[in-house]
């Protein structure tokens, strides 16, 4: 491992001993994986924009080097979209939780999948709202029988991968933060994907989700089989359904099918690019 490179990611960041996650939190694994992936890809911190969601997971933006933004609950993807549209040279990584992404931010998730901006969303999925002490999120109930009372208060869980596929995402992957090396691999591939790349990372909440523990995941995770064709959307859908039927959780790239795109340029922002524009073409249409 490149320790000098890793050290770079600890500058402009909250010191390690001040990190406010519970001991054993799955998000530590994601943080380590992010640093590994960014080091491997030789991304420079000043080129990076980390957009954090609201919740424990969104704090990750301040735990490593790079520019960061943090606004409203559910908003990360839309801020990222605007930043990426303004400056395609930025590496934009949105880092949010499952409540942020699939409850209050689902309006952004669905449509940003369709828009396919060249950025990454990594969801630290633990099935609970940890920061507010453990309420159910839309992904609550993973692996549990669907017998928890009324449907209105406890609807069946959102399947993040199927939602992404249905929303026309072009890169859908899954990881488990208990496997840092694999998570880092997924982040590398997501950053390299020329379009919107979604990683659903299972990141256990050791305080409020005592059901989906590290051991629970380790018993169930299985890598996507070698012969899976990730460019085949039907195959991706079938794979997710088959794993679910077997009570297993796929890890790896489930779907990858980049769309052809026109290259975009940074929008004008400096004085010499903006001053004294010629309004004549517009005015001519109003004469």
């Amino acid at each position, binding site marked *: 491992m490149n320790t000098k490179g890793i050290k770079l990611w600890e500058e402009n960041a909250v010191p390690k001993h001040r990190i406010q996650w519970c001991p054993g939190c799955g998000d530590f694994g994601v943080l380590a994986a992010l640093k590994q992936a960014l080091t491997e890809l030789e991304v*420079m*911190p*000043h080129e990076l924009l980390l957009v954090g969601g609201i919740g424990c997971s969104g704090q990750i933006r*301040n735990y490593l080097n790079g520019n960061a933004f943090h606004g409203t609950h559910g908003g990360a993807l839309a*801020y990222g979209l605007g930043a990426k549209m303004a400056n395609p*040279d930025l590496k934009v990584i949105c880092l949010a939780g499952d409540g942020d992404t699939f409850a209050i931010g689902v*309006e952004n998730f669905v449509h940003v999948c369709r828009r396919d901006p060249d950025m990454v969303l990594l969801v630290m999925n633990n099935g609970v709202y940890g920061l507010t002490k453990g309420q159910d999120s839309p992904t609550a109930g993973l692996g549990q029988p669907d017998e928890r009372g009324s449907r209105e208060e406890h609807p069946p869980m959102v399947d993040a991968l199927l939602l992404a596929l249905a929303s026309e995402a072009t890169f859908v992957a899954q990881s488990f933060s208990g496997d840092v090396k694999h998570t880092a691999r997924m982040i590398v591939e997501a950053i390299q994907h020329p379009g919107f790349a979604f990683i659903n990372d299972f990141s256990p909440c050791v305080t409020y989700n005592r059901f989906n523990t590290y051991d629970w995941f380790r018993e169930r995770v299985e890598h996507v089989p070698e012969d899976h064709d990730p460019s085949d959307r039907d195959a991706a859908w079938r794979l997710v359904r088959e794993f679910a039927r077997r009570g297993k959780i796929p890890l790896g790239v489930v779907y990858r099918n980049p769309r052809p795109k026109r290259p975009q340029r940074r*929008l*004008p*922002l400096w004085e010499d690019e903006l001053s004294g524009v010629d309004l004549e073409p517009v005015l001519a249409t109003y004469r």
Partner: protein
Amino acid sequence: MGPEGEAVRVNHVKLLVGGVQLRDGVTTVTDILGKIFTRAGLFAVAMEKGYASTIYGAHQFDPMLVTEEPPVSYGDPEVDVLVALDYDSNPDAPEQPNRDTVLRHGGKLRDGGVLVYDSSTGEIPTGALEARGIQVFPIPARRIAQSELKREIVKNVVMTGALFRLLQFDSDEAYLRQLLEERFLRKGREVVDLNLQAARRGRQEVERVLEANGYQLPVRLEPRPGRHRAVYISGNECLGLGAIAGGVRFYAGYPITPASSILEFMEQWLPKYGGRALQGQNERESIRAALGAALAGVRSMVGSSGPGISLKVEEFGVSGATETPVIVVDAQRAGPSTGMPTRPEQGDLNLVIGGGHGDFPRIVLAPGTVEECYTLMLEACELSDKYQCPVFFLTDLNLSEGKKTVLEEVFRPPQVVRHGIVREEDVRTKPYRRFEITPSGISPRSVPGTPGAIFKASGAEHDEFGFVSIDPRKRAAMVEKRMRKLDTYLQEDWKPPQVFGSVQGNPVMVGWGNTRPVLEEARLLLQRRGVPVALVHFTHVFPLHRRKLEALFADAGPVVVVEQNFSGQFADLLQRELRIATRRVNKYNGVPLYPTEVAEAVLQALQREGAVVRIGGDSQPVPVEVGRNEHEGD
């Protein structure tokens, strides 16, 4: 007074064109008229839009004042010429909608005025109008188009030809021919000829009625070509131009009346200036994307109307806390809730000065005219960049969608100044503090991608580097720093209100935003009646410079705040900031303010302290006695 003996009025005509929405193409006609009158060197103002929030079928009308010199305002509702494009789709059920335009607006026709209507499906009884000396021209425009010209679509050209004859305008067809050639020549010469023939038929029909009745036309429009360069343009288009000239290169909007035309304008033009326009999937995506683009260093703007502005409120705080600038255009319409989407109001002031939890700096601007939609937008661009906070830009439906002749000298593109952006060389020697505590409250901003100037921006309270902090001292210092930006704004950039007349010892009419032309004209009316009222009009609406305004109002007589909302939102603000008692004139029925009714209402308000005069219905002010506010001060 009848037309007999009355001189022909030259180059001062108020028209009203009415018909069935979409079917009759009301604004297609008025847009053509406005463009042609503008080319003829005249001034056209069509800013009293009357339409409904449906696609098809409702009654629509569009008044237009045409003058030789720039008019003070669009004038009173009275019209000289009424043009009714509507016809019966079912002649066996003649009650609707054939007569809508005549029934609804016949009362606005001045004695001795002109009515022209489509008589294809039968004549309308107009005896009562004729008794007032009104000249009535039944023109079977649709029938002519259908049976003679075999193209129903040219029925409005028949009416336009008739109208030009009634206005004694364009007798050699030069203006109309030029416009038709621009639009239709690529479809073939025969299309142009067909349209010209339609216009000629309209003229002939008018001639026929003139001869039969011996009418003497009461108005005439004479071209004054070559006096100046001018465009016929709407407020939304002007503010879009202002944004482009002021350096905005990212715009996001979600479809909503009356702000959609900003999105359309930006989608058409921003890419040609290197920018991008985004139709958000919802109101929140729009402003969030704009904040993201602004974070990346690009000047960004969103536009919406009341309901959309309400949905964006949470992001105003994000803009304030993260010090990410954004221009928010609020093309106001009558609320609350869906309200009246196609009717004007000034009801969103409290929303934009108070919307959002917690305290954060914001600036509210409100242009008074279509021209100021351009010039004040240039200011909005600079202010948002300099103060790194939300800047609101309040128009209303009529200012946004209404069109008028604007002299091209207004559209001077400025030198754009980027404020306080740090470059790589600025941050080599000391650590970069994005949210540095400064005397002005303004901190050095960087564009992500600048080596050495990495920053963390956060809606969570933070320290100077942007790291989350709830340390009480740091929190207090950061709140104070942000709010200090408003002191700096008031010192360096706040513009005092425009004052018309002398405030000293005189009654003062106060207004803000889009009502200025009407208030100016109301003031002139009052002066003519010997009431020496002054007008104080604000475009920099919030925050207010207390000391300067206290000086301004120190020797003033009674203060009457005129605005288009129920409660008097600006009057409340003025009362709170200056601790002066205000009297109020309010109108909230969805009809724009008119000079004569404002003058009457102000006179009533001057009769007693604490007066609230509510203008209801179409014309007559209704005085309502209310108690004085408890927080009023003295």
